[in-house]
């Protein structure tokens, strides 16, 4: 069984994707931390840096959280605001 989630991308990942969000299809039960492997090649080519975190539907989450159909997951790169 497949589900579809939207992945929000920022900064270097957004530029590599050419879009600030991509929809990906995954097996039901996929954990948040596995979404990276389903992203388009240009995004994965950038590499996932140490310290990246995840958010699920606009709240912080952990890589082990289970994705559901329609979820919005964000790859939150190490931040540099201020």
């Amino acid at each position, binding site marked *: 069984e497949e589900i579809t989630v939207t992945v929000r991308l920022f900064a270097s990942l957004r530029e590599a994707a050419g879009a600030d969000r991509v929809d990906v299809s995954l097996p039901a039960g996929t954990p948040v931390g596995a979404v990276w492997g389903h992203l388009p090649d240009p995004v994965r080519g950038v590499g996932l840096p140490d310290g990246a975190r995840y958010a699920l539907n606009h*709240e912080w989450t952990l890589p082990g959280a289970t994705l559901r159909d329609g979820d919005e997951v964000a790859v939150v790169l190490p*931040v*540099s605001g201020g």
Partner: protein
Amino acid sequence: MILLTPDPLDAAALVAAVADPDHGGTATFIGTTRREGGAREVAELRYEAYEELAEAELAAIAAEAEARYGARVAVAHRVGAVAVGEPSVAVAASAGHRREAFAACRYAIDALKARAPIWKQTAYADGETGWIDGCAAPRPAAAGRPA
């Protein structure tokens, strides 16, 4: 007052937002884009936010500082291009006395820099750009990067 905005920051509005007749001190911090002096001159910074989560995180940080120090705290951050010398971030914290006002202000700016999902891209005067987001490669090398 929690604000993500493409417009110039108004520090006086933040100070007004934390005003309280029982609070005798207000500390503020204003972060501005530096020219950087050294090898490469900076033309501007460009900020990008994960807006939904950034607003929630800034509100959480302000609430933490308020609870820890008995303060009132306001935070504003620019998104988009910010020229050298312009404020990119402003925090105001009022409290009964100055020790707590300074501590709350410092807590909020430190936490913002550590936790708020906002990213900075440096645009140098020579035309190059680089995200500060933990990703290794500068943009000019992107074409030769393995996919």
